């Protein structure tokens, strides 16, 4: 059946709560309202106020108390209402959620999942379209995940809830309504592996979350140019499946990494640097980076001029081929 990313995520939460009663869902408006995107819809109705509940309006409080709940033995899945409202929780994430296991010499493990609807493209007001994944990729002790398809939305969220390590789970909010013909539950490729969504020979496009779909569209459009582009869905930023990325570039000789976040010091820099270190002699052109400009996310009427699209991606392929 046709399942949207939103439905897949909601079902994943439902199934995880049904499978393990240590799983809790908490955050702002996740209860009666079911979350502003309805990803937690009906969970409180189904599992009660002790399993799914609203918290006061305080993100550091949400993550900090979730750490305590995890120490006790629960598996909290917390929702940050929007990307731009994750920042108040930054200290709890970096100083405790990520470090606790290491600090405690392995005695304290924190199976916490932080769900973050992220990215732009939905015409939202400011602070509602941020792509902060690079911050979290630079923090040791947490895993960073971003599904690009409904099937991965379900499967990667289930695995993220199961893994004993803390996970930052980035949900591409502009793809909440993206449909895929699947039956739930579904198990996709293993957690920590990248997937070749489209095999090709001209060059490799690499993306995660919202840009996977855009890269697939670019690859289709590229056919008119006679280009056969490979598209890789990175899926998990940390752990990162370097071998799959490198192997692809060794075949195609060219790579373009794509994300919505500003390019400067973005996660694309890590992908570019890493691939270059490992596929240097195979590269016919430098790994190119496509992303947002190095500016704050603009007002809604301008986001189409900020966000990477098919044209900007193909321009990069063009530049790559020109080397």
């Amino acid at each position, binding site marked *: 059946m046709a399942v949207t990313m939103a439905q897949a995520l909601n079902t994943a939460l439902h199934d995880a709560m049904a499978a393990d009663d240590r799983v809790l869902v908490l955050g702002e*408006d996740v209860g009666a309202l079911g979350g502003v995107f309805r990803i937690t819809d009906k969970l409180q109705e189904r599992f009660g106020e002790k399993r799914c509940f609203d918290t*006061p*309006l305080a993100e550091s409080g949400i993550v900090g108390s979730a750490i305590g709940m995890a120490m006790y033995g629960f598996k909290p899945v917390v929702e940050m209402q929007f990307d731009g409202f994750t920042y*108040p929780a930054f200290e709890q994430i970096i100083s405790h959620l990520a470090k606790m296991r290491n600090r405690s010499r392995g005695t304290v493990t924190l199976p916490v999942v932080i769900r973050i609807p992220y990215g732009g493209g939905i*015409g939202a007001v400011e602070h509602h379209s941020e792509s902060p994944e690079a911050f979290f990729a630079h923090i040791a002790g947490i895993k960073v995940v971003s599904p690009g398809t409904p099937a991965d939305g379900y499967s990667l969220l289930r695995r993220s809830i199961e893994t004993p390590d803390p996970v930052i789970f980035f949900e591409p909010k502009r793809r909440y309504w993206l449909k895929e013909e699947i039956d739930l539950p579904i198990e996709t490729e293993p957690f920590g592996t990248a997937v070749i969504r489209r095999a090709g020979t001209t060059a490799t496009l690499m993306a995660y979350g919202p840009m996977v779909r855009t890269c697939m569209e670019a690859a289709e459009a590229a056919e008119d140019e006679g280009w056969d582009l490979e598209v890789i869905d990175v899926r998990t930023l940390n752990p990162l499946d370097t071998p799959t990325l490198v192997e692809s570039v060794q075949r195609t000789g060219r790579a373009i990494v794509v994300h919505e976040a500003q390019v400067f010091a973005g996660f694309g820099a890590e992908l570019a640097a890493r691939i270059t270190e490992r596929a240097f002699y195979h590269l016919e052109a430098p790994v190119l980076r496509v992303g947002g400009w190095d500016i704050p996310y603009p007002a809604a009427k301008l986001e189409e001029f900020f966000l990477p699209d098919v044209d900007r991606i193909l321009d990069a392929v063009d530049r790559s081929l020109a080397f």
Partner: protein
Amino acid sequence: MDALVPDPASLLPPHPPVQLLDDHGELRESPDFPLDLKDEDFRALYRHMVIARRVDKQAIALQRQGQLGVYASLLGQEAAQVGAAYALAPQDWIFPSYREMGAALVRGVDPSAILHLFRGTWLSNHDPYESNFALLAIPIATQTLHATGYAMAAGLDGRDLVVLSCLGDGATSEGDAHEAFNFAAVFQAPCVFYVQNNQYAISVPLSKQTHAPTIAHKAVGYGMPGLRCDGNDVLASYAVTRQAVERARGGGGPSLIEAVTYRMEAHTTADDPTRYRTPEELAEWKARDPIARFETFMEGQGLLDDDMRAEIDEEAKAIGARMRSQITDAPHPDPMEMFEHVYVEPPGRYAEQREQLRAELDGSEEQ
């Protein structure tokens, strides 16, 4: 045994909330909160509320018609916003949240400027220094620290200036609100924290937001006076704010005011309130409409007749209509402006990126 300073008793808010107009619009003056208002002030308060409601209605319509991406209505909070803003002197400042259209209008901010944020034309479109009205703040409670810092600065500078820091009931849960209250009290900054308790933070009711007797009781822990008023009573909202503002102006430090009101509309046009509140509750508050109540009072005082009402309605319509055209006729923003204001001294790569965008724009024109 030496007495505590400040004396805790002096910080406890009045109970019940200060009300100067009862539910039937009867004036019940209070010696603690004397009204220093003339007839023209009463008319001004009425006028501001009517215009605010009209503008708000127009904004909702514009959103429904696809002219705005989203909008946060102030319906039901007109008295709370107008009363408080009216208590300020021209040199004073307001640091608003995103639901402060009423306060903005009192400060003379062009309403279309506010709506451009919601339309997504620009991230803001008014100069805060022209109206002493800061940018709308979306990240909850963050503006309370800017308000505190501005007030601290005025204090350091010896300026006669008071800052009104607006926040919601939900915002009081954020760490930033706590730090703002504490900084303002420690530095005795001329800052008045004005909490519009409209009973909800999106779907979360006050009972799940705090266990405090009232929000005003939070003041005690900072050593500042807590005040509480009927936020649907424009005179109480004015008089209570006035007292706090004058205390701050006189060097008496900050205060925390809780204006008890209700959000009659959805949280924003994107929200579905039927999921978390009942029609009965809504009806209860509808009966306490702030404008209707004040109207009864005005008529009773012979301050309002049909001509006047018609005149004000006309003006409100006109303002709403102008705002509408300013929005519908607004030019599409210039993409190149994205690079304009980020830095005074932008990094070198902006030049390259500007060129790249310029090329993209030319390219898409060709197609």
